[in-house]
């Protein structure tokens, strides 16, 4: 039997997740940009203090995991469109996914170290 390695059930949830994370990031971007705008040019204490503010912390805590999910859906779309050999596509998808999982942990570590 010939099988193709494509998803069957997660198309809609991916589509929806991409849009919800987009909305979250759009709102968080405005807060983050305003924060950085008001703090510049900062010294180290002001910079660290900015990232310790609750609204900045909240925005980034929502923004960074959203980026990872959003990027996964987008990169998966790109890989599905342009990389036709299944083996190479699967390898690239796994590499993308692992990178994003690593970035998420790293981002949380940066945020919560403060």
């Amino acid at each position, binding site marked *: 039997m010939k099988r193709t390695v494509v998803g069957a059930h997660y198309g809609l949830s991916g589509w929806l997740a991409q849009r919800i994370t987009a909305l979250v990031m*759009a709102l968080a971007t405005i807060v983050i*940009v305003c924060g950085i705008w008001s703090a*510049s040019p900062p010294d180290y204490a002001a910079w660290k203090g900015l990232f310790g503010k609750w609204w900045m912390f909240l925005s980034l805590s929502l923004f960074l995991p959203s980026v990872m999910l959003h990027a996964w859906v987008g*990169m998966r779309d790109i890989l599905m469109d342009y990389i036709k050999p299944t083996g190479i596509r699967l390898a690239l998808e796994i590499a993308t996914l692992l990178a994003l999982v690593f970035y998420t942990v790293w981002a949380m570590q940066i945020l919560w170290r403060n």
Partner: protein
Amino acid sequence: MSDLAAKKKRPLWYNLSPLSLPLPGLVSILHRASGALLFLGLVWFLFLLDMSLGSETGFARARAYVGHPLVKLSLLGFLWAYLHHFCAGIRYLFLDIDKGVDLPAARLSSYAVLAVSLALTALLGVKLW
């Protein structure tokens, strides 16, 4: 060969080069390209954030690094990619709820996406520089 036969001459060669893309098509492919670019840049942004927040010396190092003209130029490129992706993304969210789907509105909004993202890049770029 009759006129009709000349008119129906096959194969037809359409010009599919990106330069002849209609404006909404240009915004669409730039949305994809900027998204891919931002994904590739993600590791670099996290690296910069980590370094600048880690310690006093890290902050000074990050500041000197960001002051390098080539780094500034790349940051400006990424800034444009982010802003284009942001503006085009908002346009797609409206298209998703059936707002602005007719051709004149879609053309106008894609023109606005290009213009606004470039203007914001200039504004924030000047501020960062």
